[in-house]
């Protein structure tokens, strides 16, 4: 920041109506709702105390983090090789590959989630095929447990990791890799000591994005979990709709928001470190 005051460009005025709209329609209701956890019926921290003393909600938070971590790990394991392979394609093939990655977004997430029920169910495609081949005799329970939730969530969130990673990988200067080769480095060393560290910031950003999204994810865990995998969003749904205990819901939402902001701050810090 320079010493002199920055002049706000005149065009900033065009953004003002939108800012006002966002503040009134989005930010203000959220703040009011969160304030409810502190002020209803009288200013108190009791709701937060109840939240942290009841082991139930701590367990829900812990389980959600666990599922988010597993999903993020799976997305990295699947997404990084995919992005790397896409980078090695010719430009025309790259466009096709990127389109295929984005294609699922054209289908409603609800339809995609229910499609997993058709594929993974007891009488579904996978189980019937495995039984035909003779690998198994009784159907495997893919659905209505953590496994089903992780499969569905990974499938939905994978593009969020692949696309930024792919974009960042494209920017990595080919000449750096060629320089390393000309200095005598074998391919494996080139990858691990030159390429991978350069792709790390994008990978970290994508991973944190997937973590945040999984942490607050509602629809896929609700449908594929069958009520047996309660995550934070499902607990919020219960508190808001079924039990109408909005103060507890507001407190839990505040915790969710804090975790998300912490992850976001972490990703910004990593990005700042990488820029040095």
């Amino acid at each position, binding site marked *: 920041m320079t010493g002199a005051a920055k002049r706000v460009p005149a065009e900033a*005025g065009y953004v003002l*109506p939108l800012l006002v709209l966002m503040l009134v329609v989005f930010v203000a209701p959220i703040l009011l709702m969160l304030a409810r956890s502190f002020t209803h019926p009288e200013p108190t921290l009791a709701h937060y105390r109840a939240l942290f003393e*009841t082991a139930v909600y701590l367990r829900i938070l812990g389980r959600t983090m666990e599922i988010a971590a597993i999903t993020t790990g799976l997305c990295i394991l699947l997404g990084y090789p995919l992005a790397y392979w896409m980078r090695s394609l010719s430009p025309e093939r790259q466009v096709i590959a990127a389109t295929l990655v984005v294609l699922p977004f054209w289908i409603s997430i609800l339809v995609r989630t229910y499609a997993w029920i058709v594929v993974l169910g007891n009488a579904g495609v996978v189980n019937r095929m495995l039984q035909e081949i003779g690998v198994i005799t009784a159907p495997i329970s893919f659905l209505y447990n953590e496994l089903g939730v992780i499969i569905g969530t990974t499938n939905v969130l994978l593009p969020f990791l692949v696309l930024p990673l792919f974009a960042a990988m494209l920017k990595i200067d080919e000449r750096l890799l060629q320089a390393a080769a000309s200095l005598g480095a074998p391919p494996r060393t080139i990858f691990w000591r030159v390429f991978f560290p350069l792709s790390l910031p994008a990978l970290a950003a994508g991973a944190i994005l997937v973590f945040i999204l999984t942490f607050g994810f509602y629809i896929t865990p609700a449908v594929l979990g069958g009520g047996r995998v309660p995550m934070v969003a499902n607990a919020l749904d219960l508190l*808001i*709709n079924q039990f109408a205990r909005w103060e507890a819901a507001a407190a839990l939402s505040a915790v969710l928001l804090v975790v998300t902001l912490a992850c976001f701050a972490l990703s910004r810090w990593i990005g700042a470190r990488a820029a040095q």
Partner: protein
Amino acid sequence: MVRRTIVRATVVTALAASLSLMGTLPGQAKVEEFRIVEAGGKSGESIEKGYITPFTEKTGIKVVRENPNPLGKLKAMVESGNITVPLYELGSTSMAIAEAAGMLEPLDWEAIDPDPMFDEAKKPYGFGYQYYSTLLAWRADAKPLKTWADFFDVEAFPGKRTLPDNFTLAIPMALLADGVEPDKLYPLDLDRAFKKLNELKAHIAVWWTAGAQPPQLLQDNEVQYAASYSGRVAGMPGIEMTYNQGLLDLAYFVVPKGADPEEKAAAMKLLHEMSVAENQAKAAEIVSYTGPSPKLDALLPKDRLAEFPTTEQNKGGQALSQPTWWAENRDKVERRWQEFKLGM
């Protein structure tokens, strides 16, 4: 230059907004249309065909249905002071909770002027319009059940189960399975119920949240045994059911506190239609739930009598819910339920 444009834009927007608001001021002369919130699905269709159609024919007032009907939505409506409907459908437990929380207005029974109704359907704050039962159902190729004890017995009746993700139903089911008499259920013995539920937990494949799930799960062979709403499985091919030890309950229509008085007056006339036996018979054709008229039995189709919850042959063996107990003890039960679901 930019500032002038912004000021002009803001003034125009404010003008447009206030003009549109004027069009929605309450207290207009005559009600031509009002909305109701109900459960949706086949139940909603039965309301449309059985009650709304004759009502609109008689009065010319249109009724628009909205769904679904979670309790939280009603609470949001009442707290914000923005009541959009004069009628809201609630289950008996939700109604007791709403009544205790001061979210409802009393019904104007003189304006409704109902035909004869069962006593339990005629509450000061609610009109019980639909009897429904949550009962035992199973795939036709699975060993038939007779009681909840059978449902909870995985050795004699092997297979996966699905139960409703609703403790007002699951806890009485567990108690009935443990041998408690239907009329001695309340006050509920929570320790006994959760002990029984923990035994079955590993075999419950899905906790269903929508009425359409159990028949779908049975048909897909995801589960072999289910607890389901009666109207959803009655008469379905490949699925059998029994009313023995069913959990009988009533769905009520209530009036949110602060509803528009003229819409409420019109809504009372709609409630009158819901008390007429012939209309109830028409509604029962779409989904096999029964209305609150004692004269309904005679009008139901004879070959399908077994499908309905309140006929002579079925009403006897069932357990009726006790919403007042739930309104007082809900918080306690909810915490234990969450702990149970998380496996503690």
